[in-house]
């Protein structure tokens, strides 16, 4: 090999290394910028939450101080003890669990079975009925609030769990979501089950439902979060103190002249914890569910 050839090769190798170094540093810069943006977004998102947590550990006299103190000094637990001891907080929390939990469980059942019916079964008028179900999405909640209240009142369900739970079940978004997901499951799966001796309900229960876990998790989290923070409907239908849910109960602590923001902050923190737990618990399925359409084979 001649010396010129060696030199040419060495220069080419050097150029290649330089190009690789350039590409690497551009990649690092790109990642750094994305992380920076994400960190700023994260701070903006987490700021109100931390502010409320901080408030909940302050006495009412030191709520507004200058300069603002992020870390309470001293840590004051009075807001929590007042909330748990002097108000019906525990009862409200129980009501909220019963309300949001029941709506979630019932919606998962009804929406998945309706989704299965619309996705996989043939019956006359199926498309028209589905369009009709979807069309109800167009009706704003405010328009149905009074009629729904009147129906519940006439049925004698005001200040009852049934009054709280039944009307929110009639929402079509879950049916639509489940139908779309179930439609993507191969038809041969049900056919195989049919040949194996399953009835239609058993196909739904034993074959379809276990394969819908991601969609069910997404639906469950959405419904639970929506109902956990639902305010208007429980406010209208459950006025008695022992039937109140947390959102309504906490709002009732706001006085006309004086409001103890520390207590309300403590209540809000405790309101958020179950949702955070539910989200963390179902996160894996939640992500799988949102990616299901993209990655399904």
């Amino acid at each position: 090999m001649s010396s010129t050839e060696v030199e040419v090769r060495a220069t080419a190798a050097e150029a290649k290394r330089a190009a690789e170094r350039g590409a690497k540093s551009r990649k690092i810069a790109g990642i750094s910028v994305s992380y920076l943006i994400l960190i700023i977004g994260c701070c903006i998102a987490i700021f109100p939450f931390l502010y409320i947590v901080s408030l909940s550990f302050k006495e009412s006299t030191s709520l507004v101080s200058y300069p603002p103190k992020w870390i309470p000094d001293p840590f004051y637990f009075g807001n929590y003890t007042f909330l748990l001891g002097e108000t019906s907080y525990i009862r409200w929390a129980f009501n909220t669990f019963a309300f949001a939990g029941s709506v979630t469980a019932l919606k998962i059942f009804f929406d998945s079975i309706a989704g299965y019916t619309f996705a996989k079964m043939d019956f006359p008028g199926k498309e028209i009925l589905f369009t009709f179900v979807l069309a109800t999405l167009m009706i704003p909640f405010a328009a149905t609030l009074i009629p729904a209240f009147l129906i519940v009142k006439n049925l004698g369900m005001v200040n009852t769990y049934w009054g709280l739970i039944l009307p929110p079940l009639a929402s079509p978004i879950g049916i639509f979501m489940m139908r779309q997901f179930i439609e993507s499951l191969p038809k041969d799966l049900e056919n195989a089950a049919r040949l194996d001796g399953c009835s239609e309900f058993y196909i739904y229960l034993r074959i379809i439902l276990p394969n819908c876990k991601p969609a069910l998790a997404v639906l469950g989290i959405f419904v639970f979060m929506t109902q956990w923070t639902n305010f208007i409907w429980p406010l209208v239908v459950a006025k008695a103190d022992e039937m109140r849910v947390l959102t309504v109960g906490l709002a009732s602590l706001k006085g006309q002249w004086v409001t103890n923001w520390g207590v309300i902050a403590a209540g809000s923190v405790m309101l958020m914890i179950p949702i955070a737990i539910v989200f963390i618990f179902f996160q894996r399925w939640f992500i799988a569910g949102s990616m299901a359409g993209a990655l399904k084979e």
Partner: protein
Amino acid sequence: MANVEILEVTKKYKEVTAVDNVSLNIEDQEFLVLLGPSGCGKSTLLKMIAGLEEITRGEIYINGKLVNYTPPKDRDVAMVFQNYALYPHMTVKDNIGFSLKMGRVHKGEIGKQVEDVAKILQLDTFLERRPEQLSGGQRQRVALGRAIVRKPAVFLMDEPLSNLDAKLRIQMREELLRLHDRLQATIIYVTHDQIEAMTMGSRIVLLRDGVVQQIGPPQDVYDHPVNAFVAGFLGSPSINFFEGQLVRRDGTWVFASPAMQLAFPAEVGAKVDAVNHGRLGESTPVSIGVRPENFQVVDGQNARMKGEISLVEFVGSDKYVYLDMPSAHCLIRTSPWFHGKKGDTIGLEPDWEHFQLFDAEGRSVFWWNPEA
């Protein structure tokens, strides 16, 4: 095991006829292959036998019993699906045993039967795995196991090998044939792969647009196609067709086209006369079909068929030679030692033993029987 009788079965989806007046009699222990291109109605026919599709018209009998209104689970059939249709949330063991569980078989008995089937299919070490943890071939075997464990009267297989790679497909083909021998089962097998059909089927049913084109043992259908579609569908590489006219010169039938003037030998001419019944007259438009392996390469100077080589493909055991002819193309199969190269002109002589002649409608002059 059982026989299956299909009587004038038709399936319509609104205006589209998927299966048109099909009649078949499948003998006990027969391996019958339904063959045809995509959308020809073969899978629909299979699903009608399984009870997964309603029958628009006609009757299906399994073991002499009319099953038109019998639900799938009571027809005593098992099906292997194209995409396996294994239950993703169950283990191999549960997948295989699911039908027995549905049939309320005792748990201990289920375990025993599942193990027996798993041994036959060499799945005994995978019983606790889920389908996603298995390879394509293993999944296929689980799907087979699920069918076998039911000990059905009839096995229905809907393109079960189409998702496997070429090597595994050949292996599974052999395994399926062994299984057929072992179980002495009646199998109705759907495929669009003519090699699969010819290697596996004791009889082939070739379908096109929902209509049966021909039924018979593979070699019969291959050698004696009733029409140009059957001739073109079976065989790889495909048969060569040449369009032209049939003319009579000096008492001899001659196939005349821009590519060639081909006088038929006396015995072929006599065969044409014997089956003609006035169908073929002077200057009748016809086409001739010659399979790639039914040509002999002859001296190019005096040959009646000549072509210029445009491409030579070496495929190991053979060479495929593509030829350009005046207003025609032709593909022949030669030995791997053929030395011709691109641009050479070679002469050809068809093998008159395997010569096909089709009329203007594509019906075989020799084999299409208008009475059938």
